[in-house]
């Protein structure tokens, strides 16, 4: 795995290399070089299996983290390519041309995080939610509890408990608060 990372470093600017396990490594690269890097990894380093595309919302820092997880089925190693994009201008180059399933991930991310992938097939079609007109629901600022209270009528006689406090009082009744 270290050799693959060394090869990457000769061609692309990467940072924050973390060898999480013997067969699992994460690297960070810039927004502009992310798609060229994963293209090169697919074509020249044997990372032919695309595992997933995931998004992490670092709202306090003003960034979205996009993680492209790739797998090399011959060398049996996984590689996570991280890149960060501004929340204010949430747009990323599409990778739908590299693997067929990427368009589905991008379509879901557009709906759930509001990140656009111009040119990605059916990216504007709703994936899970129909007629959603609120903040993209997987963004950190979207409050599910507040949304539920605002949208649905409360049922009379229903008692709500904070899960953490309730569980603590049940499991550790003698522990100090």
């Amino acid at each position, binding site marked *: 795995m270290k050799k693959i990372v060394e090869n990457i470093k000769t061609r692309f600017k990467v940072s924050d290399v973390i060898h999480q396990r013997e067969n699992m490594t994460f690297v960070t690269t810039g927004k502009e070089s992310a798609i060229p890097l994963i293209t090169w990894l697919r074509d020249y380093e044997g990372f032919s299996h695309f595992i*997933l595309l995931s*998004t992490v919302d670092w709202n306090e820092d003003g960034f979205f983290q996009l993680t492209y997880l790739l797998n090399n089925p011959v060398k049996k190693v996984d590689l996570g390519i991280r890149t960060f994009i501004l929340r204010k201008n949430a747009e990323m180059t599409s990778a739908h041309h590299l693997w*067929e399933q990427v368009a589905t*991930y991008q379509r879901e991310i557009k709906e759930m995080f509001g990140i656009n992938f111009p040119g990605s097939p059916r990216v504007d079609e709703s*994936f899970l939610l129909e007629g959603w007109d609120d903040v993209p629901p*997987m963004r950190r600022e979207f409050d599910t509890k507040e949304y539920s209270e605002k949208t649905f009528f409360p049922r009379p006689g229903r008692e709500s408990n904070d899960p953490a406090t309730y569980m603590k009082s049940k499991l550790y009744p003698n522990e100090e608060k």
Partner: protein
Amino acid sequence: MGADGKLDVDLDSQKYIKVWQGPNHPGVTGNMSLELTISGDEVVDAKTHVGYLHRGFEKLFERRKYIQCFPTCIRMCVPEADSNEYCLATGTEELGGIEIPDMAKWLRMLALEMARLQALLRIVPGQGGTMGLGIGVQWGLYVRELILDRFEELTGGRIYHMYILPGGVRGLLPDGFAARMEDNLKKADQFVKDIQDLMYNNAVFKKRTNGIGYIDPSWVDSFGIVGPVARAAGVKRDVRLDYPYLHYDKLEFDYNIETGSDIYARSMVRLKDLKTTIDLIRQILAKMPDKGDIKASTPNVLHWKIPKGETYVKSESSRGEYGFYMVADGSEFPRRINLRGPSYTHAVPLLEKLLINANISDVSSIMVSLGTCPPEIER
């Protein structure tokens, strides 16, 4: 054909009709809709519509402590809940720096194989069920109930077990468990013989599965195909063998491969998987120690702050690679937990492609042969 190479469908021409299959599901999959455009009895366009089982699990995880995520995560794929428990526990342990005891690894492996067995006892005959061959499903569900009895004995639950938790497992095997399991496995052996006679040697089943839903082996990488669907295309993919976890490297088994890459080949791979799983449970019960620690020491789970980091952990479910991408930000709450289930690729882009030019009566068979499980798409 339009300029974009896609079929121009003029519904007013009366050559085409739109048919919605679902969201009631055709047997053993789960609720999702297929928007089919039909010409005669041939599908000319297909779009999947998911969202009927969306419960916002991944959003809920961000507001819950790691231990509170367990009762939620198991619902991300009902037929095989234990893979969720395993991945969430393993990811939490890896990020939290916990090493589990040897005995816990054996017991986790036993739970995962029992989960695979009960899942295969549904889906193997379920393939015939899509063609009206319902009796095999009844036979399979009978044996599955026996395995669920063992689960109830081991964990207290039948479908959702909550047996695998951070640090290890919840309990040792009850007295006499192995003997009762052996009785059940003999019934499973008999089921394997019976279902071969009933389904695999059935002329109608063969005619309706051979050459139907063909997947070119080159699509395995381009569509992210995993598990039995990849193995039926002749491609060796099994997380247990490729990336041995727990004590799978101490068990003797091999890839179950077919080359037909159609519904029949996928059914045959699953039947072989069923035989392998029965054998693996016997191997595990024979090789595992009688006693040992089952849980490592962990911090108080209600105050456990997991150090900043990220990982991807995976296991082989009955449907293929099943993984959790987990990100911790140093707090008591996960920053992000993202499930990668086989259905995400199998039941959306791949299914949409396979349905083109399929006969409408084969739609549900193709859908089941891909191991479709919509909750893991929607999370």
